[in-house]
């Protein structure tokens, strides 16, 4: 499951917004097949880092490499084509489209029909192509258990379902690297467990390399292979879950604030990085 070729690398990435230093000299790399988590307190720069990976922000300094290629200045839409997909911290579905259409948009870079061949639908093979992809995304729909809302307008769904549809849409891109920004925020326990299982499956069965930002330490410790900790835009630790947990800096900067949360979760298998959710 874990090959040793780095699929992604950030080299000395800094990002400033005027006077605000969102990221300062952050370097790390992710191996193909890893489930990599980024944690840190609010405002630590986690989303900023993911935005640099997905191309929404361009680092003020430093470089981003994907599959050995320097992608620092590449536009987000081109990054989708080379295999980077993501979900957003705040819901970002196409609110007036059906769930099916939302997921089909994820197929954009894989579909070949265009405004001409699409408009001529039956005569150009566009119909055949659309149907073939429709069949494929049905598999994702089954995987995420959202068959019952296929035809619903995305904007009318519950929060938890919308998060799931967003994941489905990102999966439809067939990315090699998938970035999940707080996929479980605002979910109840049951929804969180489901989501954690989907993430593990999409890593293990679909073979996608995962970068996840998540505040729920129980889940993070449980399913991550490796973890990076950011604080005030700086990397303060990186390593296997148990190493990160033992790190004094981390305890002070981040986990200290969440002591009670952790003690609640003491019985969770924090030392088994690749384990499934209990």
């Amino acid at each position, binding site marked *: 499951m874990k090959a040793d070729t780095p699929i992604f690398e950030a080299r000395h990435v800094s990002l400033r917004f005027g006077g605000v230093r969102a990221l300062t000299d952050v370097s790390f790399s992710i191996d193909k097949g890893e489930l990599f988590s980024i944690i840190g307190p609010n405002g630590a720069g986690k989303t900023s880092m993911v935005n640099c990976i997905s191309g929404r922000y361009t680092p003020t300094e430093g470089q981003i490499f994907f599959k050995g290629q320097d992608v620092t200045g590449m536009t*987000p839409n081109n990054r989708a084509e080379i295999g980077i997909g993501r979900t957003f911290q705040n819901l970002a579905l196409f609110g007036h489209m059906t769930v099916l259409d939302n997921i089909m948009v994820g197929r954009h870079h894989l579909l070949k029909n265009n*405004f001409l061949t699409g408009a001529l639908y039956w005569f150009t093979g*566009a119909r055949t192509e659309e149907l073939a992809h429709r069949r494929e995304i049905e598999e994702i729909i089954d995987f995420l258990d959202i068959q019952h809302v296929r035809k619903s307008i995305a904007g009318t769904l519950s929060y938890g379902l919308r998060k799931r549809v967003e994941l489905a849409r990102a999966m439809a891109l067939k990315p090699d690297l998938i970035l999940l920004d707080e996929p479980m925020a605002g979910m109840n326990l049951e929804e969180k467990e489901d989501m954690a299982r989907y993430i593990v499956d999409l890593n293990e069965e679909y073979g996608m390399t995962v970068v996840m930002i998540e505040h729920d330490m129980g889940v993070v410790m449980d399913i991550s292979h490796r973890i990076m900790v950011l604080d005030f835009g700086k990397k303060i630790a990186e390593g296997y879950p148990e190493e990160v947990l033992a790190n004094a800096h981390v305890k002070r900067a981040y986990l200290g604030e969440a002591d009670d949360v952790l003690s609640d979760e003491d019985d969770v298998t924090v030392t088994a990085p690749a384990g499934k959710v209990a």
Partner: protein
Amino acid sequence: MTSMIPCGDFKTGYSADTTIFPTTTSRNMVIFGIAVLCLAPLVMDKYALSLLIQIGYLGIAALGLNILVGFTGQISIGHAAFFGFGAFTSAWLVSNLHVPVFFAIPLAGVLTTAVGMIFGLPAARLKGLYLAIATLAAQVILQDFFARASWFSGGVAGTLTEPFSIFGFVFDTDERYFYVVLAYVVVMYILGTNLMRSRDGRALVAVRDHYLSAEMMGINLTKYRTLSFGISAFYAGIGGALYAHYLQFVSVEGFTILFSIQFLGMIIIGGLGSIMGSLMGTAFMVLLPESMQWLTDSLAGGAIDRALDLSNSLAFLREMAIGAVIILFLIFEPDGLAHRWKQIKAYWKLYPFSH
């Protein structure tokens, strides 16, 4: 949001799911409707027929504007200028390059597309008010061009052009030209429907709904915003060309900003982001002044007429009514006629359990 498919009607494959019409009944209804329309020239008087023809060519242009505004979320207050450009171009192709009208109409559409893209390219980088002003510039520049370039538009005298014909058969009466417009409406609306259910159409809506995640899905924002201007101009150009060969005369005065705003009125009333709504809204806008006329006629001579001087203020009353209707729609029916139509259908389908 409930689906409109009656219970028990289970789809047996994905292909059944992607048909234009949700049920075979609705498809048959539309085919029946078109068949009935084919009989219109046999039973309708010339005046009613001319209204239908108007609804046809304006409806095509309105669909274009709806693709730009309703589906892509852009704004344009220069649509009438593109409509005019299509009209002049088709006339120009016929008289100067001796292109048969049959080919001149689609060609005018293509050339209008090119002009639309040129104006769309900078506009694609703008938003909101700035975009509105940029399209206003398109309106002003093109209008000025019509007035000055007499080699193209015939200047103040306007341009005379030929009627539509195929193999020597000339469609020079309303009864005949009606079929040309009907065929164009059917084809253009089918093309529009297909576009919206395939890759690039979805991309346009994605850009409207959430441009940041659209970009993350591999959609090039500038490309699709510009494309939307192009497609919208194509529809405007075809509509304009059909208009030119209907009247067989194009004058430089007609394509004002007021006309552009009427196009916006059509799609707002019909329903932003609704294909069939575009046609409904156009019909509404064409028929509204007619019904005003009818109203004033039937009140003619009465006390109200004398008090309000209706017959003299008719033109003024029409404008007022159109403005009032747009405002009322914005307040009470922001989703347009298409939405109301769906609800009426739902009401009958669920009757008597609709409450």
